[in-house]
């Protein structure tokens, strides 16, 4: 082993640019802000700008010295219980980005400002962390995901249509019934009402036709929904007009799961939910359980409950996947494999399970990562199948919902063989389809569109999301009389005679079922901001002239029916209060599953289609067998959230890419195909092709490209945010293929494409690349469970401790009364990004746009660093190079201001704008800041952000467009701002404040209504509230019973850059991988722990390390 340290043994890097030391990366390393970061974006030089501004300042004078005359509009009757300035919390439920959201909404003065998870909902309450299951209720928080956190911004989206639009012909300029010079103006109720009046006339005519034809000329396009009310109303419409045709369209195909359950005999409509609380071994095959899965929040909670190395038991997560997903980065062991080869692997695993062979888990002579090809795969299969067999009834095998029927069936079958059904895998018999009504598939509908004279469209923007070979637009055009319920005037609206404004889920009554069938009511948090907007149930019942058109009554009736016919006022109110209707869950399937591929028959499908194919598993690139896998975006789902700026600018979990989709592939694949990062590659399959920028991710499967859906809206139709961002995949997508496209030709075009990725921004610069390689293992410390057991202090020993850190000056006293601190558990963090958006929503963090992100000006107070790690020494000795598949593991590390007790930023501020509080919070006084940026320069964590522009008022939400919108629209978007936090202006530094507003309000509350002390759990930061895996703990370090105190005294706790003696208040708990011994890599077997020889304690010289060093 090398004497010089660990630089070339275990090597961490954050991007391929860094690994290859490209000029772009070196620029990031040597400059705090990238070159030209202080230039004005539209070509006006800084100097010219100052000249212009100087002139206008001189002319400005001292006009109006006193504050503007301000009027206070008092209530006429204040709502009962409302105290102005005190937040109210309401439980609600809605369907969002294909998942059920059980939310607790913060409402200030009747205005919703934040959406969090509802800890009382059974989906979350059942899986409370064990350490405070029965204890203090205040400690409970549910967590949520980035989609949910960002849903509040979509409510105040300025691009929502304010009134009904009427188009005389396809793609015509719509009649908006507003004066020509006005764009959408939500304040202009009169115009909006006029449009509704006109629409009303149309509906009246249309109803007459409907009654005459019994609906034989009408089709309704809908997407499968988790809302029982929508399904019930659709069924009512069909009852009234039996000849109506239903057309089912799913933009993100996942229908094979339900079909497989049906084929296996679990009932026509049932759902499968994993209970990871009971799963000691989790095998995820191309399934992003902790990320893209619709149940990810619940799974993350359950998963993290068993991630403590000192807990009763620690689970083990295997992930085999083509893309690098959130689940893959959280996995204990991950194998990169093409999605099209997953069925082969599954077959081998099943065979091994059938054989019942258990391979003993012991350290092998050759470490896992020195193996090649088939030996490697065999060892993985042995380990997975042995672990599954050893944990019968306590394991989960999950496959991606985009996989085929055969794969789904095999997964059900294997789980049944392992005795997991009813224990760690639960199947609920719930109603989740429209009872007894057959629906046309979209392709069949398009083929016979001419048979219909009118159509109602419910799914968001199907013309955009549909596969390119299916000409839905033409079908809509042929029908002509199309009514579309939508938030936006989008691509689909172009082909619709009428576009009717839809409500946001926070504006209307609705309901949604959890996957286990528990009904949650969605109550409106605010009256529709755009007068007249309709929810789907209201829209359908009005169009079909049903007797009940009131949203609330429809939802109540559904709840009554689901409760078996009676619903008392009391039950209703209680259900609204707690956020779910007690006693509505589906019952668990207890019958026998017949998922054996050979015994299933019927339905006209031959049984062989259900059998898993067999094939050779090949980890290396096979140029003749390249695949493309399409996934909904981790940021904007299928594109329906595209106009949400927070999500567009969210650095996606693994790529850290913003504002774009790309063709993500591995280093080896890129090298062998001659592709460069950021170059456009043409992906072709038959006649279908698309050009996308290449994005290289180490550890991605060889011969596989992952591409996200939802991008590439046209500039005209995408709205202010989504327009002209990313690449549209319509020309590539084929209707008959769900997600996995094989036999791809990938041809580089050498055309560069600017990608806005945040991964190299704010690199923790430590004096050059070599040093960085040396230090990175100290920044993100990790070890295996075996190592932790033999040496719990390995985290400390990761670093050499030559002498005790001492300050030259007297240290400030910053622990008076309270001592605020935070712990982040890297072993629980999955890097899902919920905290990033939560912080943005809570703290009025603006977005800056793609161009500004490229300049390194993104404003996120909390970023998630992700480090790739690759054992290059072992690769070299095994004769592997970067053209071979490499095992890159990932550690994610949320990074925000650590509130150093001896903060370097404070030393250099010339105006004392950043100073310490007595309780240890590094505070920012924005109005004192003069914008020298010295503090950002001196911050070792690079967490300070500078407002180059008035992002919140001028730039942010409508970045990239010349501003000609109405004042009212700006008012609408500013409603999302949290009044508890100052909105920062241009030229001011900002950063994480530990949610100082929550700290202050918590302290005030403890004194006005409490016992004068803040107790553990009283104050939670926004990121902590949003974290579904409970990785973030905030609290008082003076309170020895607090969780934050206890976690900071865990042997896994460490400070990043502790040698600088800055005494950060945010500590991290090291990552522990529960890797089976046979799959340990060389570096995991013999980790370098330089601190061990110098460390203060030499307690446990373990046999483990002794054997292999």
């Amino acid at each position, binding site marked *: 082993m090398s004497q010089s340290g660990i630089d070339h043994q275990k090597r961490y890097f954050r991007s391929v640019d860094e690994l290859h030391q490209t000029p772009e990366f070196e620029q990031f390393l040597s400059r705090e802000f990238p070159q030209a970061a202080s230039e004005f974006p539209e070509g006006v030089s800084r100097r010219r700008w100052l000249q212009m501004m100087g002139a206008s300042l001189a002319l400005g004078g*001292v006009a109006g*010295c*006193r*504050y503007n*005359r*301000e*009027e*206070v*509009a*008092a*209530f*006429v*009757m*204040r709502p009962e219980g409302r*105290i*102005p*300035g*005190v937040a109210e919390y309401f439980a609600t439920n809605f369907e969002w980005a294909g998942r059920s959201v059980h939310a607790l909404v913060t409402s200030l003065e009747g205005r919703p400002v934040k959406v969090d998870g509802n800890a009382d909902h059974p989906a979350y309450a059942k899986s409370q962390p064990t350490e405070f299951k029965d204890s203090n209720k205040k400690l409970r928080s549910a967590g949520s995901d980035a989609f949910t956190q960002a849903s509040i911004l979509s409510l105040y989206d300025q691009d929502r249509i304010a009134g009904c639009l009427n188009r005389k012909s396809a793609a015509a300029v719509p009649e908006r019934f507003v004066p020509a010079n006005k764009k959408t103006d939500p304040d202009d109720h009169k115009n909006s009402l006029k449009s509704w009046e006109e629409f009303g006339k149309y509906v009246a005519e249309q109803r007459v036709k409907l009654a005459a034809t019994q609906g034989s000329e009408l089709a309704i396009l809908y997407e499968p929904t988790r809302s029982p009310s929508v399904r019930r109303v659709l069924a009512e419409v069909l009852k009234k007009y039996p000849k109506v045709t239903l057309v089912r369209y799913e933009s993100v195909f996942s229908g094979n799961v339900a079909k497989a359950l049906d084929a296996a005999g679990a009932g026509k409509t049932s759902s499968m939910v994993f209970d990871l609380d009971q799963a000691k071994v989790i095998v995820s095959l191309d399934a992003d359980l902790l990320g893209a899965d619709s149940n990810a929040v619940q799974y993350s909670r359950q998963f993290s409950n068993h991630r403590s190395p000192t807990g009763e038991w620690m689970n083990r997560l295997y992930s085999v996947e083509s893309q690098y997903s959130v689940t893959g980065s959280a996995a204990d062991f991950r194998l990169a494999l093409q999605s099209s080869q997953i069925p082969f692997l599954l077959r081998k695993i099943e065979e091994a399970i059938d054989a019942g062979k258990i391979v003993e888990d012991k350290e092998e002579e050759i470490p896992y990562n020195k193996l090649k090809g088939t030996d490697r795969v065999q060892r993985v299969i042995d380990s997975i199948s042995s672990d599954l067999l050893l944990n019968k009834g306590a394991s989960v095998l999950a496959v991606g919902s985009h996989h085929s029927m055969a794969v789904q069936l095999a997964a059900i079958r294997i789980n049944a063989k392992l005795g997991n059904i009813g224990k760690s895998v639960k199947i609920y018999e719930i109603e989740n389809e429209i009872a007894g009504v057959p629906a046309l598939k979209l392709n069949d509908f398009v083929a016979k569109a001419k048979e219909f004279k009118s159509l109602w469209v419910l799914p968001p923007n199907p013309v955009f999301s549909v596969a390119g070979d299916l000409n839905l637009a033409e079908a809509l055009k042929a029908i002509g009389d199309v009514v579309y319920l939508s938030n936006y005037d989008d691509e689909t609206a172009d082909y619709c005679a009428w576009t009717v404004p839809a409500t946001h889920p926070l504006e209307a009554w609705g309901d949604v079922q959890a996957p286990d069938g528990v009904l949650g009511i969605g109550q409106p948090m605010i009256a529709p901001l755009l007068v007249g907007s309709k929810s789907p149930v209201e829209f359908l019942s009005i169009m079909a002239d049903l007797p009940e058109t009131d949203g609330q009554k429809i939802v109540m009736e559904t709840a009554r029916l689901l409760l078996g016919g009676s619903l008392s006022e009391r039950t209703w109110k209680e259900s609204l209060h707690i956020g779910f209707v007690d006693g509505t869950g589906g019952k668990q399937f207890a019958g026998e599953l017949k998922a054996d591929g050979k015994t299933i028959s019927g339905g006209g499908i031959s049984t062989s289609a259900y059998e898993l194919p067999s094939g050779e598993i090949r980890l290396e690139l096979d140029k003749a067998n390249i695949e493309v896998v399409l996934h909904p975006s981790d940021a904007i789902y299928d594109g329906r959230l595209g106009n949400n700026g927070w999500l567009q600018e969210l650095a996606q979990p693994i790529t850290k890419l913003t504002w774009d989709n790309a063709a993500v592939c591995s280093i080896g694949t890129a090298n062998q195909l001659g592709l460069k990062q950021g170059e456009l590659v043409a992906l072709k399959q038959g006649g279908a092709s698309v050009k996308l920028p290449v994005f290289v991710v180490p550890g991605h499967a060889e011969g596989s490209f992952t591409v996200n859906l939802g991008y590439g809206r046209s500039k005209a139709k995408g709205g202010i945010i989504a327009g002209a961002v990313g690449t549209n995949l319509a020309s590539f997508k084929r209707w008959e293929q769900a997600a996995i496209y094989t036999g791809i030709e990938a041809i580089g075009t050498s055309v560069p494409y600017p990608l806005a990725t945040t991964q190299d921004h704010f690199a923790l610069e430590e004096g050059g690349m070599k040093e960085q390689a040396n230090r990175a293992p100290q920044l993100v410390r990790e070890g295996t469970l075996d190592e932790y057991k033999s040496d719990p202090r390995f985290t400390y020993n990761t670093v050499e401790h030559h002498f005790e850190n001492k300050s030259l000056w007297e240290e400030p006293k910053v622990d008076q*009364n309270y001592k605020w601190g935070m712990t982040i558990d890297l072993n629980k963090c999955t890097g899902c990004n919920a905290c990033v958006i939560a912080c943005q929503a809570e703290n009025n963090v603006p977005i800056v746009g793609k161009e500004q992100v490229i300049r390194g000006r993104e404003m996120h107070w909390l970023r998630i660093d992700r480090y790739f790690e690759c054992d290059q020494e072992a690769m070299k000795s095994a004769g592997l190079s970067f053209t071979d598949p490499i095992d890159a593991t990932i550690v994610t590390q949320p990074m925000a201001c650590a509130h150093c007790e001896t903060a370097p930023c404070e030393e250099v501020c010339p105006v004392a704008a950043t*100073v*310490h*509080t*007595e309780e240890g*919070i590094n*505070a*920012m*006084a*924005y*109005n*004192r800041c003069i914008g020298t940026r010295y503090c950002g320069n001196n911050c070792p964590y690079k967490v300070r952000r500078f407002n180059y522009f008035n992002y919140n008022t001028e730039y942010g939400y409508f970045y990239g467009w010349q501003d000609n919108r109405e004042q009212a629209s700006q008012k609408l978007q500013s409603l999302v701002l949290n009044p*508890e*936090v*100052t*909105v920062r202006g241009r030229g001011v530094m900002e950063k994480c*404040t530990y949610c*100082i*507003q929550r700290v*202050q*309000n918590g302290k*005030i509350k403890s*004194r*006005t209504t409490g016992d*004068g002390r803040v107790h553990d759990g009283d104050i939670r930061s926004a990121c902590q509230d949003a974290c579904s895996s409970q990785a973030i703990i905030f609290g008082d370090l003076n309170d020895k019973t607090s969780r934050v105190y206890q976690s900071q005294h865990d042997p896994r706790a460490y400070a990043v850059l502790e040698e600088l003696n800055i005494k950060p208040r945010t500590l991290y708990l090291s990552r522990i991988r529960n890797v089976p011994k046979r799959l340990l890599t060389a570096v995991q077997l013999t980790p370098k722990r330089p601190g061990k020889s110098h460390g203060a304690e030499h307690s446990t010289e373990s046999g483990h390390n002794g054997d292999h060093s």
Partner: protein
Amino acid sequence: MALLGVLTAAGGAYAGVLFLGATSPVTLNTGYRPEQPVPFSHALHAGELKMDCRYCHNSVDKSAHSTIPATQTCINCHSPKSAAGAPALSAVHSDSRKLKPVHDSWRTGESIDWIRIHRLPDFVYFNHSAHVNRGVSCVTCHGRVDQMEIVHQDKDQSMAWCVDCHRHPEPHLRPVEEITNLAWSAGSEEEQLALGTKLKAEKNINPLVNCAVCHR
């Protein structure tokens, strides 16, 4: 040349006056006395009739805001005549012209647009409940509102003024029961200081002066 010198000096002086004198909160804000849509007399209601401040400003001890009362609060006493012209049972001045905006608001459901007097900048977060529950009286920041026919801003409410009290709260503390008794006095200055020191110790009142106390 000399002229230029004079002009420069005069310009400097002018700028100095503008920035140091005319923009001082004492000059700008103290004494601000806008006319309100309803000539509501605090001197009558709070002074003569001895109504508690919290009858109207009823969230002052619960929230950051003291709250401008809803129209309904006025109507409790000043309900308008019914459509038939009959005054309500306990109505006071049910046909007063001065009460027209109140009655209009009640009938139409439109707010009364009161003019805001005390206004801190957006980056300052003041919390009423934190102060009144600890024995800082209304009078400390708002003056003898119970003697004001038309309310004006009595104190400059500048940062220095806030910090002054946060550093030395003793002269301004009183028993919590007396916070809305604007006429209350501990007696002499020495007596007040003694009481303030006692209350400060009893209630563990140690106001902080770091930036984050008010700036978030």
